[in-house]
Structures are given as C-alpha cells and as structure tokens.
C-alpha cells in the first residue's frame, strides 16, 4: 500500500503496537528546557529511575532567561530557581546542557537545527508545542506534556495513537514582500485553529519546495496553531546542505549512510491523504492578525470584521470578545491601527534570515517616535552571525533595542512584556489574551511587516518599503 512520509516515519519507529492501535514509538531526539522539565526529573528521582539515553537528549534554558545584560544573572527568584534546577538536573542525569553563558544558548527550536541535532526521518519531541518546527527537516516532531517528558527520559519511547494524514499544497510563487509567515497565517485562517486536530500535516507543492530551510521552519513552527499534531516537509538537497558539517550532524561514513536513508524520505506518489487543502502563491498577501486567535487573520489591505455579519453564534461571540479585548472597532482599516511596541524574535521568526528581512526594511530609517522596538535573536549564534553582518548596527541606528537571545516577549515569562492595552506588532506565534503580558494586544506579522510597523508607528504594508 502506498504510504505518506508520516506513515513511513511512524512505521520505522514502532517498538510495540497493541490490538487497539496504541503504539510505543522510539524517540531519536529529545529537547529539554527549564519550564516543562523540573517535575519530570523530580518524578524520575521519586521512582528511582534513570535517563535511558542521555546522549539523545539536549537541554537549554530559554523561556526564563533575561535578554538584557546577563553578567548580573537572573534577578527574578523563581526564574532563577527554574534555570538552576535545570542545570542541577542535567548534571545529575548526565545530559548535555547549553548554559546561559554558552554562545550556543538560544531558543530550543532554533538550536536543535543549528547544531544538526535535528535530522530528517527522526522522531523529535520536546515539552513545548512549537516542536513542530523541526518538521521542516522531514522529521516527525511534536510537543508533549511534562508526564510524557518523564516517560521519554525514562524509556526513550512514547505512547501514541496514529493521527490521520493531511496534505496542504501550496503552488506558485511568493509575491514581493510576502514571506512564509504570511503563508502559514493564511493557512491557519483558512483551516481554522482546530482544522488540523487529529492530523499530521505534510506541506507540499512548488512554493513550499522553493522555500529556504529557515522559511520552512516558520511554516512548520505554527502548525500547532492549526491544531495538528505535527507538520512536516519532504527533505531535499537544501536540507542536506544545511545539515552538512553542523556539530551534531552525522560525520564521514555515517553521513553517507544517513544521506542515503534521508534521500528516500518522501510520500509515495499515489499515497492517500485523509484531507487536502490547496493554496496558490499569487493569492497570498502580507497578513496580520486582528483578534486573539491565530486564525483571526486579514491581509494588510483588510478591515476589522463585523461580528454582526456572522451567522454562527459561537463565532459571533468570539469575535465580539476579541474586539473588546483588542480595543478595535468593526470596519476599521487595519493600516489605521497605531502600535506601541514591536517585537522581532521567537522560534517562529528569530533566525538570521528573519533578521536580514527586517534589517533590509529598517535600513537608513527610524523607528517612529512613540514606538519601542526590540530585536531578540533566536540564539547566541544567530546574534553572532547578525553582528558579523552588521545587522545589529542597522537595528540600533534606527532606534531598535538589540537584545540577548531567548523566548522573551513571545510568552513574556521574563521581564519583557506588554503593559495593559499596549499594542504590539510581533513576529511571534500566538496572539492569545494576555500572552505577551496581561491586557497586552498582539498583532502577528512577518519580520518585514514588523519593521514596516516600527517605521510607520501603525500596522503597515511592507510592500511600501521595498526597493
């Protein structure tokens, strides 16, 4: 029977299957961070268990770390305890950790690919919903809860039931000023925040193949915002070239063996998908969210929707609630919405290409007077690369704050947060109520759009600033 890429990876990792389909899957790569792991390590200690494969596990502190000067350590006592607990646990259980002072430190989903820890055809898990990012490499990658983190640490396996197959095909070309962030926002707008529930999504089509490795990561990253278990893309030469020579990528004869295996990872031509959606690149515009769910998207030319036009009662109530929270009126042109802050960073858009995109727009221009704008590189290595290219100078000259790497204002667990009613153009992944700070109002956009908003002081069309 013809198989999808997901079917193949699934079958390749089956340790055991019960009659009811409940399966035990082998986990090749486990990423660990400070927020969702302390209780898992505590559980291991309480039941006197060890980490089965410390070498398949990589840890980093990212959610809680300050993005300002780190020489003074972490001032928040609870954050400090959580980061120290991770250090202690990694030492006790023999797990490799990139500490806060390590230049390789960064957001867990940025450092996995950067180090070559992320590999095609593997099963990758992490106690974080944005683990889907790694699917860009043709791996099956998904977020798990803390009990499952403990399960993986103890057994290197995970209990799962198989999801259904969903293919999203995007053909054609991206128009100028449109990025993979706009593609995924448009997809989520189309399928809805629960459109992928029960599925693993494979992104395919000529537009997807034309994307760079980093652009693919942005798409897979936000798969979870469409409710799917995981999102993946068939690996190709771009992926192999990206991985070649990375510190944790296979070496010498193992590289050849791996490459041989990776090259065969694709869905069969006649494989059956349970659900399919198709988009054309020419219909994709620069997008922006207006509400409090990632499905609440419009193009930058659009207007805020009117709940009165909704027939579905739940949807009507939900729009009303969102507009009240966001402080917006139906019919307003989104370009007329004034912003207070700009955040460029996160596991969605904190990589070097994202920073280049934003820097290109902001170069020789100034951040609007009433706007506070910040760039938080996704990792120490992204920061270093950007500084070598002089991007830090471009940002600083225009009035941006240039920060240390971490999750930062994507979820506002550290000191970087919005105040009530402050409005932010953000390259992150969630515009939920309170996500970037209690009462804070988030508009999700691409890095270029965030840069455009910083200059104009309102949400704006990045295409206006293209040369």
């Amino acid at each position, binding site marked *: 029977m013809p198989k999808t890429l997901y079917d193949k990876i699934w079958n390749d990792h089956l340790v055991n299957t019960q009659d009811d389909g409940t399966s*035990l899957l082998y986990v090749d790569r486990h990423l660990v961070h400070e927020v969702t792991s302390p209780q898992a390590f505590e559980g291991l200690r309480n039941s006197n268990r060890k980490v089965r494969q410390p070498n398949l596990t990589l840890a980093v502190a990212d959610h809680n770390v300050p993005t300002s000067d780190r020489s003074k350590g972490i001032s928040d006592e609870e954050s400090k305890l959580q980061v120290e607990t991770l250090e202690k646990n990694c030492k006790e259980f023999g797990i490799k950790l990139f500490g806060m002072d390590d230049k390789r430190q960064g957001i867990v989903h940025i450092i996995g690919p950067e180090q070559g820890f992320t590999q095609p055809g593997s099963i990758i898990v992490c*106690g974080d919903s944005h683990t889907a990012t790694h699917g860009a490499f043709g791996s099956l990658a998904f977020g798990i809860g803390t009990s499952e983190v403990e399960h993986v640490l103890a057994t290197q396996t995970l209990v799962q039931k198989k999801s259904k197959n969903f293919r999203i095909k995007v053909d054609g070309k991206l128009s100028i000023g449109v990025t993979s962030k706009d593609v995924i926002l448009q997809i989520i707008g189309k399928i809805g925040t*629960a459109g992928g*529930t*029960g599925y693993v999504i494979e992104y395919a089509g000529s537009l997807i193949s034309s994307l760079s490795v980093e652009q693919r990561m942005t798409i897979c990253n936000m798969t979870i915002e469409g409710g799917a278990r995981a999102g993946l893309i068939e690996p190709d030469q771009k992926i192999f070239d990206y991985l070649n020579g990375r510190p944790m990528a296979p070496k010498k004869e193992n590289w050849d063996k791996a490459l041989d295996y990776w090259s065969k990872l694709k869905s069969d031509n006649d494989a059956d998908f349970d659900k399919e959606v198709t988009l054309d690149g020419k219909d994709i515009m620069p997008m922006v969210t207006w509400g409090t769910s990632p499905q609440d998207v419009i193009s930058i030319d659009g207007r805020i929707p009117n709940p009165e036009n909704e027939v579905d009662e739940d949807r009507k109530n939900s729009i009303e609630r969102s507009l009240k929270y966001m402080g917006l009126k139906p019919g307003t042109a989104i370009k007329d919405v004034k912003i207070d802050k700009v955040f460029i960073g996160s596991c969605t858009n904190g990589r070097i290409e994202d920073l280049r995109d934003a820097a290109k727009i902001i170069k020789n221009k100034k951040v609007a007077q009433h706007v506070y704008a910040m760039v938080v590189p996704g990792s120490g290595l992204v920061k270093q690369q950007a500084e070598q290219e002089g991007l830090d100078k471009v940002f600083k000259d225009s009035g941006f704050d240039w920060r240390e790497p971490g999750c930062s204002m994507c979820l506002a667990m550290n000191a970087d947060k919005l105040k009530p009613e402050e409005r932010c153009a953000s390259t992150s992944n969630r515009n939920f109520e309170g996500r970037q700070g209690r009462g804070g109002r988030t508009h999700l956009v691409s890095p270029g759009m965030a840069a455009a908003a910083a200059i104009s002081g309102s949400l704006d069309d990045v295409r206006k600033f293209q040369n």
Partner: protein
Amino acid sequence: MQKFKTIKSIPAYLPIVNIDTDMIIPKQFLKTIKRTGLGKNLFYEMRYNEQGTPINDFILNTTPFNNSKILIAGKNFGCGSSREHAPWALLDFGITCVISSSYADIFFNNCFKNGILPIVLPEAKIKELSEYSKRKEEIIVNLEKQKINFGNSEIDFEVDQFKKKCLIEGLDDIALSLEKNPKITEFEKKLSSDKPWIFND
C-alpha cells in the same frame, strides 16, 4: 496517579470557544518546579482583577461552582501551549472531568496522565448539560459505564479503552512501558546497526 471514581457534581459552564492553556494558567505561574498548588491561579486573568482581587461574577468564584468537579466548555478546549500546568491547575482546583465538543491534542493527552477525564460530546448535548449548570443541579459521570446521568436522562460517551483502564486503575504508564524493556532494547540494537548516526555523532 489517583484512581478515577464516579463523580457527582454541579457542573460549571464556561461558554467560550478556543479556551487556550494561556487562559487556563498564565505564564507567570509556570515558574514553579512543583505540580501542586496551581488551583488558586486557575483561569487567573478571568478570575482576578489587576490588583489580584477576585472578580465576583466569574463563575468559578461563585457558590456552588467554586466546588465544581466538572467543567463544561466551548469547542477546541485547551489549545495552544503544551504546558501540563493546565491540567495540574484544573486538578488542584478540584476539577477531574471536562466536557467539550472538541479538545486540542496535547491537552487531551495531558489530562489522562493526571487522572482527569476529558469527555467529547456533540454540541447539542453540551447545551442540554449546560442547563444543569444554570439550574445548579448535580450530574453524575460514570466512567466505568461510560454514562452521564442527569435528571431522568442519561448520555453515553466514548472513551479510548486503554486510557479508560489507566484512569480507573490509576496506572503509571512509565511502569507499563518499562514492561516492554526487552522490546525497547531489541529496537535499539537494530537502530544502532541500521542507523548508526542516531547514536554515534
């Protein structure tokens, strides 16, 4: 894990769709290194004002719903972040059963690991049950029989049989998986010969 027993409770009804785990437990409470004590912060931003004073008309701040063991909510409950702090907070508050027409995948799994039963029912049934919340009448959730009893009626619900067994018997699924240790070892042996790069680099 606590064994799941039949629950009798007046359900609390939150008629909001897409309740995300950020709403269930905001990020400032994820800094804990414990599983317990999160109940007081459940639905924090809906439950307390900026000064930390309880908002009186929020359902979980009112009697008898401050003692509800059952929460009925709009579709796609638990979407967003994978934080298991969400089920921990529900459990610590005393909620051991959630009823919705759909759930986000990770949250759904996390519930079962913590002795919480997430029940899926069609929208029409949800509306019917929500009346019992409004009337402040008890309903009974019986997992063994897969039935919800209310007034003179009952509704059947579906549940994965393996997950049901784990809930009722309070099984530790790590111990269950470790029973498969010979199979895991055998898999690893084959893996290191078929894909040596997984272990070697």
